């Protein structure tokens, strides 16, 4: 690996981490689309900042662009508050308007600015190592590494300092307000952080893909954990995997780094969506199948409990009596046998003691819907979960 390659991967990883942290809270606040709005509408801020400073990495440019981000959020909320349109419509109105102003500003000044729309949309991570920070002739590494490093440092410091407040105001705005933690301050603080991070990441991955880095890693983490701290850590890990794997995919395909990073995140999300234990698609389908079988089992046990007469309990008559296909009858019969709930003597099925008590217990639960009765059964039985 050349040092430029290492530097690119390092920048990409830091960008991913810096995005994953505010992204986690945006996802939990159901504000994913706001990050899309911010990433687009900061463009006029960046262009204006560039005219003033002639340096894409100037702190003034970052601040100016971040202010545009806050203005976006404010405008969206303002339009929404009129009650004339819904939030998604308000977002759809605000960011294209601001973004288009940025596009026109670039087009009008295309000759004296080395900013073009392609770079704005997709970033130019591959060129990041060329723009270096030098102090008294000493090379301190790429400028964008320093920029995103500083932003990440501030983000992490804010996260650690205000973790409690962020968690509370994200989960329960009302309680946060009554306990004296202003949800408005937390809201705009988060928006400011997201805006600054977006500006920092913009240079590397562009306006469209920064959204993927903010939303995809937390969305994956959300499917895998039920703990906020773990969700943050997993988001960071997924972000870094996406960044580094994305770089190498781009290397092999000779394609855009930002595009490859996002594609890798997309594939990762698909895998997590399919295989996540608990919330993943396969796990859900498996659970539904189990529940279906267990409902059948219960129906079967109830039938046995209700009928003393042998004709109703004969193995071969079960099909007609509960109107099931042979295969299903057999699988239910096997399940009941395996759990020692029934015995079969001369093809006549009888409930065992365990089978009887289980049936009564289950019916009791279904009728009374009492939670206490079911706690112990939950571990054994899918049917009663959730």
């Amino acid at each position: 690996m050349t040092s430029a390659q290492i530097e690119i991967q390092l920048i990409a990883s830091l960008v991913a981490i810096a995005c994953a942290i505010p992204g986690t809270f945006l996802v939990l606040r159901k504000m994913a689309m706001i990050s899309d709005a911010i990433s687009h509408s900061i463009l006029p801020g960046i262009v204006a900042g560039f005219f003033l400073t002639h340096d894409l990495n100037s702190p003034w440019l970052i601040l100016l662009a971040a202010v545009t981000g806050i203005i976006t959020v404010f405008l969206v909320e303002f339009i929404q508050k009129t009650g004339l349109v819904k939030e998604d419509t308000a977002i759809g109105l605000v960011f294209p308007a601001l973004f288009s102003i940025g596009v026109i500003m670039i087009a009008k000044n295309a000759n004296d600015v080395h900013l073009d729309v392609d770079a704005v949309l997709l970033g130019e991570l591959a060129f990041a190592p060329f723009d270096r920070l030098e102090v008294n002739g000493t090379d301190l590494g790429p400028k964008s590494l320093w920029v995103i490093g500083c932003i990440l440092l501030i983000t992490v410091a804010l996260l650690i300092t205000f973790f409690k407040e962020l968690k509370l105001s994200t989960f329960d705005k009302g309680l946060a307000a009554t306990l004296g933690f202003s949800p408005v301050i937390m809201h705009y603080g988060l928006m400011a952080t997201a805006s600054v991070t977006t500006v920092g990441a913009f240079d590397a991955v562009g306006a469209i893909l920064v959204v993927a880095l903010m939303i995809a890693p937390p969305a994956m983490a959300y499917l895998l954990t039920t703990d906020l701290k773990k969700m943050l850590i997993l988001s960071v890990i997924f972000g870094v995997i996406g960044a580094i794997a994305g770089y190498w995919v781009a290397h092999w395909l000779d394609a855009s780094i930002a595009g490859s990073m996002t594609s890798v995140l997309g594939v990762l999300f698909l895998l997590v969506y399919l295989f996540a234990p608990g919330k993943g698609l396969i796990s859900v389908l498996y659970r539904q199948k189990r529940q279906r079988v267990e409902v059948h089992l219960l129906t079967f046990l109830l039938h046995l409990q209700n009928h003393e007469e042998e004709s109703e309990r004969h193995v071969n008559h079960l099909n007609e009596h509960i109107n099931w296909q042979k295969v299903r009858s057999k699988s239910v019969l096997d399940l009941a046998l395996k759990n020692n709930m029934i015995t079969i003597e001369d093809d006549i099925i009888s409930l065992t003691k365990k089978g009887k008590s289980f049936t009564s217990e289950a019916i009791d639960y279904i009728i009374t819907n009492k939670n206490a009765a079911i706690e112990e059964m939950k571990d054994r039985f899918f049917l009663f979960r959730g």
Partner: protein
Amino acid sequence: MSEKIAISVDDLTVAYNYKPVLWDIDLSIPEGVLMAIVGPNGAGKSTLIKSILDIIKPIAGSVKIFGKPYKKQHEHVAYVPQKGSVDWDFPTTALDVVMMGTYGSLGWIKRPGQKQKKAALEALEKVGMLEFKSRQISQLSGGQQQRIFLARALVQNSSIYLMDEPFQGVDATTEKAIINILKELRKAGKTVIVVHHDLQTVPEYFDWVTFLNVKKIATGPVKDIFNDDNLTKTYGINYKVSIQQ
């Protein structure tokens, strides 16, 4: 019951988009009562609670908690919001939600420690939810979630408890458990104010009641004012419930 006033509401008017939802409310709630706020849908019951808590800003009037504005008194007030006001899929545990009740006394930045955890565990035990402390909150039933909210308020150890429909969507056992805790709070001299829907249980559960329908209809001890006359005035139809006092 002492004569001290826990909450005084003066000429409170609240409007959404220039349409008043609470109109010129005057209310003095004595310390140590267990009070129900009743009224039809859209009567402004939740709005009244949120105005007392300074979550909603009125267009006129004021609220005082023990004689001072809410901002200076928030450590004396615990709030149980409607269960539906939060996202129960949030990645956190029952214990962690109860711990949030301690954040107010901690203030900004300071983090909860062993002392707060102990208090939260005690509150969980009081509402009979200790065994569920590590469970993710979406895995709890509606009644259990409501108990978690109650525990979160208990852990604040406040003088005033404001609850927005704590009995909504809970089973009979949980309702009994909750009302017993509320009665214990009153015995301990706390003031408890509950937005309530089930008129039948008002005389059994509460000793004080406020009838509300945009304007205040009546407020006072249940035995004096909980009658057909006030019910009819509040609900706008000829109300005939047979109430066993």
